[in-house]
């Protein structure tokens, strides 16, 4: 009797987990392992060409490849800007929409909306804004910020991408902070108020430490999201000027598909995976330690 119960439990467990597990195995785990294998070969994806094992050559080539270096530092720069911008914008939007206002719900929807638009579409829309709208704004207002060569110079172009990403992702991160903010007991804030803490001090010393768990999650999300940025990059700059704004994922794509060098592309992808893994792990580890128990 007992035995059959156990069996039934097992069966139930696998009938729920099994399908998902198989799907996960087939579309994530297996391709990942195959991909790792290909990164040690000269696979060109042209049917009929032989696939030779070439050891670590692709990985060594990555350190000789000037374009990989350019893309790597562009990605780091982009990620740093994004993590800061997106989190600041997300946090303050969340503060704004958790105030007692009549339009709070409407504003939440509005701020979240850009996240529902695909990155490619966003990229093209913002390309139009940077090239056409900013120029006419500059002509009519004379404000220097609109006159910058937003997409034709590498530094500005990376900022431009970060701005678009912030616009797209800020609303999403806002939702996470809202959840964090709503979890703070009103009594704590009121107590601080009674003790004479002004608005800034309440944010700095009460709210901020208490939303630390949300901060950990948001930072992780923005970081891995920016490291893997592809669609906005493709639509907004496509690497222009001179492949200086070509982030790692786009470079991987170009190496694999355009140069028809899939082995090399896979090696770059594996390196990117390791970087994201290490950075995320370190970041989550340190942020966890700052979280406060209530």
């Amino acid at each position, binding site marked *: 009797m007992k035995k059959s119960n156990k069996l039934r439990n097992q069966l139930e467990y696998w009938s729920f987990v099994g399908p998902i597990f198989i799907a996960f195995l087939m579309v994530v785990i297996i391709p990942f392992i195959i991909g790792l294998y290909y990164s040690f070969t000269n696979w060109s994806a042209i049917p009929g060409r032989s696939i030779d094992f070439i050891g670590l050559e692709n990985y060594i080539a990555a350190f000789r490849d000037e374009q990989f270096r350019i893309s790597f530092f562009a990605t780091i720069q982009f990620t740093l800007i994004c993590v800061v911008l997106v989190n600041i914008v997300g946090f303050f939007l969340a503060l704004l929409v958790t105030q007692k206002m009549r339009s709070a719900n409407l504003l939440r929807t509005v701020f979240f909306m850009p996240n529902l638009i695909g990155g490619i579409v966003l990229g093209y829309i913002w390309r139009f804004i940077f090239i056409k709208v900013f120029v006419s704004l500059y002509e009519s207002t004379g404000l220097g910020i609109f006159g910058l060569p937003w*997409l034709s*110079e590498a530094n500005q172009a990376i900022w431009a991408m970060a701005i678009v990403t912030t616009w797209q992702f800020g609303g999403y991160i806002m939702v996470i902070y809202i959840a964090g903010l709503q979890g703070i007991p009103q009594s704590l804030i009121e107590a601080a108020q009674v003790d004479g803490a002004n608005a800034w001090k309440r944010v700095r010393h009460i709210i901020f430490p208490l939303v630390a768990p949300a901060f950990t999650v948001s930072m992780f999300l923005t970081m891995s999201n920016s490291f893997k940025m592809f669609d906005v990059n493709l639509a907004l700059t496509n690497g*222009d000027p*001179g492949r200086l704004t070509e982030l790692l994922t786009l470079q991987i794509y170009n190496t694999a*598909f*355009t*140069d028809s*060098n899939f082995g090399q592309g896979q090696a770059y992808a594996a390196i990117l995976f390791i970087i994201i893994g290490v950075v995320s792990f370190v970041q989550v580890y340190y942020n966890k330690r700052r979280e406060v128990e209530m």
Partner: protein
Amino acid sequence: MKKGITASISILLVLSLFLVGCSSDESEKVTVDIFQLKVEIVDQLQSLVDDFMEENPDIIINLDTAGGGEDYTSILKTRMSSGNQPAIFQVPGPTERDVWFDFLTDLSEEQWVRVTSEGLLDNITVDGKIYGQPVNIEGYGIIYNKAILEQAGISQTMINNVNSLSSLQALFEEVEQQKEALGLEATLGWSVGGTAWWVSSYHTFNVPFAMQQDPMDFIEALNDDTANFADNEQMLAFKDLVDTFVTYSYEDVAVTDYEKQYSDFASGKTAFIQQGNWTINQLNEIDENLDIAFLPIPISDNTSWANDSIPVGVPNYWVVNKKLDDEVIEAAKKFLDYMVMNERGQQFMVEEAKYIPAFTNVSVEKADPLAQSIITYVNDEKTIPWVWHAFPLGLVENDAKKAFQDYVNGDKTWDEILSFLDTQWDEKTK
């Protein structure tokens, strides 16, 4: 009772599935998948396919298109690797011909080979065997707007005499002087970035190659490293052309989009653009009565180079997949034959797709002005070839594009550009 009804319905449904499976097996029709990249002519091609299927009831043709913004080559690679292989697909030239060589059916015995115009099969021939059918011919050059030049008081003789870089510069300068009066935003529409990056990276970049004594020999020499960009006369002279283009084109030549390039020209905001005859539909959408024609793209005053010619070539070849069943291959060959030898196919080519035909048995009666201009150059034998189809994979899209942008932005000197191209070429052919 209820259970009975549900059960019988389910059985019926299952049976019908079997029946559907059977019926398509029984008819023994041959299915030919076509995978092509011209999004502009999908409807016209589909109607040709429909008429073909009506005449050949035992053949089914599925037309599949990827082009415009999509990456045809990437999708083709995916389809070939995944086993969902098309029977007829397109290759642009020698590099891709060699990539897909194991898949190409020998088409040397086909009827249409005999009526193909001189020299157009060279790029698809290996060891005397012909592996593809030219889709059409296209040409590009510097297109000028006759009305604007007339308004600027420039004589037709001066235009016709453009056969060297200095005569082109003189013409540009003449227009540039009157820019304000003519209401121009720029004299020339040209770009190295945005959605128009290919204008420079493919087409302008082709010119110094095409002006070599023997372009294919030069590429061969680059491949085995017996020639270099850095000490090649044509490549060094090419700088003057690029400088000229930058001087007379838009200020933000690095980000100008294709849409801006052609729409400014069609609406009279630029007097020249460097483009090909494929732009005619977009130009005519804005102004139907544009009076336009091609000028050559000279890179120097050296009379022994073809500075008075325009680049004309076959953009794509239809090829037949050898790895499929014999009856599919036969049906595919039949379709290619239909396109050239049958009147319906010729009508498609000339009237519907508005191609400049690559075949002597097809004549154009009412060509658009750009096609007309190309035909004139072809008849005068003032053409140079398209050679980028023989470059290593990715060189144009990744490296030439970067080279142009770095030079225009002032990040690199011309010498640095040439040695950069040398490094990248060697990297890709080692």
